[in-house]
């Protein structure tokens, strides 16, 4: 596992988008700020021996040009990217701090992060909750979680309410009015991975 700042990741990516990576810490439209971020990233990576390092290149390859990737946000951001049998996990550790690590079992890592370990593969019918029911579903410790899985020609974006009790979640569907479907955690994991 290697720690990076957002500006280091942007610098290493050379402008290419990286799944799960948030914005730069300073205004990228400000020429002075951009120059500072580039200079800082280059100095820091050089000092840490990471500029051009083989292990960094290996971690970056799946992120820069993935065959498949998934992103999720549960408080902090996380992303998993796979390319030709190699996979990398990006984990947000702070507002502009990240780690990259090699990952072998993406499905397990997604399940860990999104608390989707379960054998419940149920899929309920959509229902339209009234305002009172919606407030009840969103009451703490419930969390609204979102995740995306993407491969060429196949993008799935999901948003759900996790009641925080380990039981089924409530999958949210687009539209007006909003509908929810009682969904098993294993169903969700299968959809995402």
């Amino acid at each position, binding site marked *: 596992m290697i720690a990076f*700042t957002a*500006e280091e990741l942007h610098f290493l990516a050379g402008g290419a988008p990286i799944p799960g990576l948030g914005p730069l*810490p*300073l205004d990228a439209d*400000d020429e*002075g*700020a951009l*120059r*500072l*971020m580039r*200079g*800082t*990233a280059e*100095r*820091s990576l050089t*000092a*840490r021996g990471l500029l051009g390092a083989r292990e960094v290149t290996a971690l970056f390859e799946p992120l820069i040009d993935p065959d498949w990737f998934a992103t999720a946000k549960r408080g902090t951001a996380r992303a998993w990217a796979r390319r030709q049998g190699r996979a990398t996990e990006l984990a947000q550790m702070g507002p*502009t701090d990240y780690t990259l690590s090699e990952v072998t079992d993406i499905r397990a890592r997604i399940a860990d992060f999104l608390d989707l370990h379960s054998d419940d593969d149920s899929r309920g019918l959509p229902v339209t909750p009234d305002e009172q029911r919606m407030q009840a579903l969103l009451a703490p410790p419930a969390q609204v979680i979102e995740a995306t899985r993407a491969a060429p020609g196949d993008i799935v974006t999901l948003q759900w309410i996790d009641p925080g009790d380990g039981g089924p979640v409530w999958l949210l569907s687009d539209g007006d009015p909003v509908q929810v479907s009682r969904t098993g955690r294993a169903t969700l994991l299968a959809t995402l991975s």
Partner: protein
Amino acid sequence: MPAFAAFEIDLPDGWAADGAPDCLGIFIDPAASGFRVNLLVGADRVGAGFDLEDAAAATLEHCRANFAEFRIEQEKVTEIAGQPAALRFQSFAVEGLDDRLLQLQALLIAPPDGRERTKDLFHIDGTCLDADKERYAPVFLAAAESFRFV
């Protein structure tokens, strides 16, 4: 001529403020042992064309030239007092000390105040023994991030 902008900074209970040459203020942790752990705030008047990247590069060059066994631990950017800021954790050896010193150096430029030819570069330098970095690095970082102009 305009004075340097007044500032406030938050430090843990027990730290003492003091005056020292060539800086605006120095703050000491009297509870530290083995080294006088300190956080220093200073300012330099620089040309209007001098920006933060110039400052980061120039201070790095100065540190490399003046500190033995100098090493950058990490550099990053952030915002302090609503202004872009450059942070550098660095370490170096000092004669007479068995352990290396760890230093956080934060640089920021005071907001524009109408001057056309000059501006003020503030620096916040926290220094402790490298062995104490787990304890003091978060203190230095929190103090630097609390810095504000008043």
